[in-house]
């Protein structure tokens, strides 16, 4: 292979722990995705969406003079089809995740999964209300069973449209119905899209993209939202908790088990099993003090939000975690699991354990998970991990970790803004209307090995904070900010502009809110819908001064999320790598101006983070102006706070008694 310029660790990541381990990788000659990204040139044709490989007459590379495939498919059709396929795959991933949870809820309700129970009955009642399930004074398991069945029904709904659509603002629903993109059944929209993108079907870019929106909406307001809700029912609606992030959370003296992937079903049980005296005793018998759990990717976010389990790192740190030599087992379920883990794990003592019936990785240990015997399997997994502990070789754990306060479910945010008696989004809306908060940015999504790890996340978040933009995050973007220390309440004082700082100090929140895993982007939809109905910020999501972005995106799920956010009215920026629809100016135009006209949101792919920030702020200011809100002016704010009283507290009593009345 031709030798490319390989990035130094400092060029490959902005995270000091990652840099330390990349140096370690160089030292011991281990290969990681960072290296491979430098080695492999991305296929320039595929990168622009111009490779059509939907039938055996091709693959057709629509480059140079070729502007049509064998079948006559135009560049526009091919690019749109490729994009739509990605959206279908992304939607399928989130929604299938939701399905498994619904089955778990059903099993729990029917008593077939004794290790699960309804941890949050109040959330169950709320969800039942949306799904039209009678609550009354029926036994909780009966309600749960009906909720699970109703949720499962949404996947194959025979008639009508998804029940959760009514959670959107009325105006938004009307747009969907008028355009004919209100999703019907979750599975149906994915299948429909796969069908259309088969050779010789839908060959109109705009029509294809419409269905892509419908499919994505079935994810956002369907699969993802159900996944979030059912997870809350089973494992509790998150509320703030303390935790820590980065590889420094690994322990030399304990069995380190990394849970990685996306589903909480197994990991929640592993959390319980790790506290089991029997398991702890077994660990101790092997010379460890106990079992230390840490997470990577969205499984991490799920157990972080609900149990406060620390974060080991984000997507690009999965290999690096193994490089510490301190990971005794990495337990994976679904999504975002690199096959490159196998050779690395083999170099160390680490057991890579696949658990999902859907995911096997050649060379990994497979212990298949079954929710009917959850605890038993979890213990078996932990025993496997513990058995590896004595085989540990040299350990290299960078002593780097940051505190954070995650746990911001939309329900908690509602509570935080007024308590039991007055909880509402009024204070948030007020803050935006007044201009203390300039707008809201959701920076979500992945890491991408082609970019400098975490760099875009750090940059955009810090810029937004300076500009009094409240940042909400999920997924690996959230983990980036967690590691950077943006998710501590103290960060408001350090990084936020004066208005945002006042708001954070009033509520006691970090300036960057961790909303959960990537399925929990549905929480952002709920928050936006509630901000609209709270009034004062227009009557549709598209009126709110808010921007969504995935500044280091890589997965198809990110495209699905982006598309449902746009179809819900948001301006979405995908950052970092090249525009995957660049091959068709028409498609590029359709997803920007075209979609803006249709649904009020637009999708843009921007490589330059400074440009991302510029455009996001411009959009926020444009929406503020359209709402007739005051121009953003940070000089007006920042007069709240505890600083003054602290000066008084320094004084001896007699002087203090005078000082409280102020300086004469």
């Amino acid at each position, binding site marked *: 292979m031709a030798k490319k310029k390989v990035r130094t660790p400092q060029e490959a990541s902005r995270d000091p722990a990652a840099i330390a381990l990349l140096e370690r990788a160089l030292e011991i000659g281990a290969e990681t995705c960072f290296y491979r990204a430098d080695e492999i040139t991305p296929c320039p044709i595929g990168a622009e969406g111009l490779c059509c490989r939907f039938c055996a007459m091709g693959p057709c590379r629509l480059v140079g003079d070729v502007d049509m495939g064998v079948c006559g498919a135009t560049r526009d059709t091919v690019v749109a089809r490729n994009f739509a396929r990605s959206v279908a795959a992304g939607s399928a991933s989130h929604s299938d995740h939701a399905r498994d949870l619904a089955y778990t809820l059903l099993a729990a309700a029917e008593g077939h999964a004794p290790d699960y129970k309804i941890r949050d009955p109040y959330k169950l009642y709320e969800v039942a209300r949306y799904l039209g399930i009678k609550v009354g004074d029926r036994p909780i398991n009966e309600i749960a069973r009906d909720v699970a069945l109703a949720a499962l029904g949404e996947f194959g709904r025979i008639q009508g449209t998804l029940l959760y659509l009514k959670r959107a603002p009325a105006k938004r629903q009307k747009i969907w119905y008028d355009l004919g993109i209100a999703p019907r059944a979750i599975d149906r929209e994915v299948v429909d899209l796969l069908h259309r993108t088969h050779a010789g079907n839908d060959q109109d870019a705009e029509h294809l993209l419409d269905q892509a929106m419908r499919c994505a909406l079935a994810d956002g307001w369907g699969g993802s939202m159900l996944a979030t809700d059912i997870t809350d029912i089973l494992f509790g609606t998150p*509320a703030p908790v303390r935790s820590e992030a980065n590889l420094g959370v690994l322990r030399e003296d304990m069995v380190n088990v990394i849970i990685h992937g996306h589903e909480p079903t197994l990991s929640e049980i592993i959390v319980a099993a790790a506290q089991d005296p029997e398991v702890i005793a077994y660990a101790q018998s092997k010379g460890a003090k106990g079992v230390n759990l840490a997470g990577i990717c969205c499984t991490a976010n799920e157990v972080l939000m609900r149990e*406060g389990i620390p974060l080991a790192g984000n997507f690009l740190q999965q290999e690096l975690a193994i490089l510490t030599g301190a990971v005794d087992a990495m337990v994976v379920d679904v999504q975002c699991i690199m096959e490159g883990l196998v050779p690395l794990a083999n170099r160390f003592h680490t057991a890579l354990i696949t658990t999902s019936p859907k995911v096997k990785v050649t060379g990994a240990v497979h212990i298949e998970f079954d929710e009917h015997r959850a605890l038993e399997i979890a213990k078996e997994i932990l025993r496997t991990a513990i058995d590896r502990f004595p085989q540990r070789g040299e350990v290299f754990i960078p002593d780097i970790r940051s505190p954070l306060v995650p746990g911001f479910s939309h329900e908690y945010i509602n509570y935080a803004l007024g308590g039991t008696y007055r909880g509402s989004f009024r204070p948030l809306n007020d803050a935006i209307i007044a201009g203390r908060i300039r707008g809201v940015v959701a920076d979500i999504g992945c890491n991408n090995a082609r970019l400098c790890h975490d760099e875009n996340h750090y940059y955009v978040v810090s810029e937004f904070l300076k500009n009094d933009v409240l940042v909400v995050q999920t997924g690996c973007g959230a983990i980036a900010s967690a590691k950077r220390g943006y998710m501590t309440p103290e960060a408001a004082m350090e990084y936020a502009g004066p208005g945002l700082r006042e708001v954070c100090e009033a509520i006691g929140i970090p300036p960057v809110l961790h909303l959960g895993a990537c399925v929990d982007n549905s929480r952002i939809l709920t928050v936006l819908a509630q901000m609209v109905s709270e009034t004062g910020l227009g009557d549709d999501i598209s009126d709110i001064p808010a921007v969504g972005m995935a500044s280091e995106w890589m997965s198809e799920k990110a495209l699905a999320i982006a598309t449902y956010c746009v179809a819900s009215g948001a301006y979405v920026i995908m950052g970092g790598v090249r525009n995957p629809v660049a091959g068709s100016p028409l498609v590029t135009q359709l997803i920007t101006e075209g979609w803006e006209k249709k649904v009020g949101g637009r999708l843009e792919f921007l490589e330059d983070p400074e440009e991302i920030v510029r455009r996001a702020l411009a959009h926020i200011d444009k929406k503020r102006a359209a709402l007739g809100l005051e121009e953003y002016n940070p000089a007006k704010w920042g007069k709240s706070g505890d600083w003054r009283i602290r000066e008084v507290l320094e004084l001896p*009593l007699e002087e203090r008694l005078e000082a409280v009345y102020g300086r004469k």
Partner: protein
Amino acid sequence: MEKVVLDVPLMWADHHVMKVRNALTKLDGVEDVYASSAWKQVLVKYDPAKVDRARIEQALGQAGYPVGQGQTPILVEPTEKRRDPRWSAMSFRMSQTYRADLEMSGDFRKW
């Protein structure tokens, strides 16, 4: 005249101030008392010939406000990870704007 500042952790509200002042002002030799519930401290000015610090502390102790002792009870403790234990018991999960919020905020004080 001498003065002394004493910490009185249990004097956390102004109805305690009344009792503390009551206990001290009736001591012979106490000339001035400033009982501050905000800072939980008492400033006592007294004539050392008539009364001493020990007597003052004793009076406070007898009134139920021992100097430097006790603290206000906290009836609820957070979990090890500082999560509020009340959350899981709170009987509501609001994910919609409450209708009354909008109705009540209508045009108020018309005239």
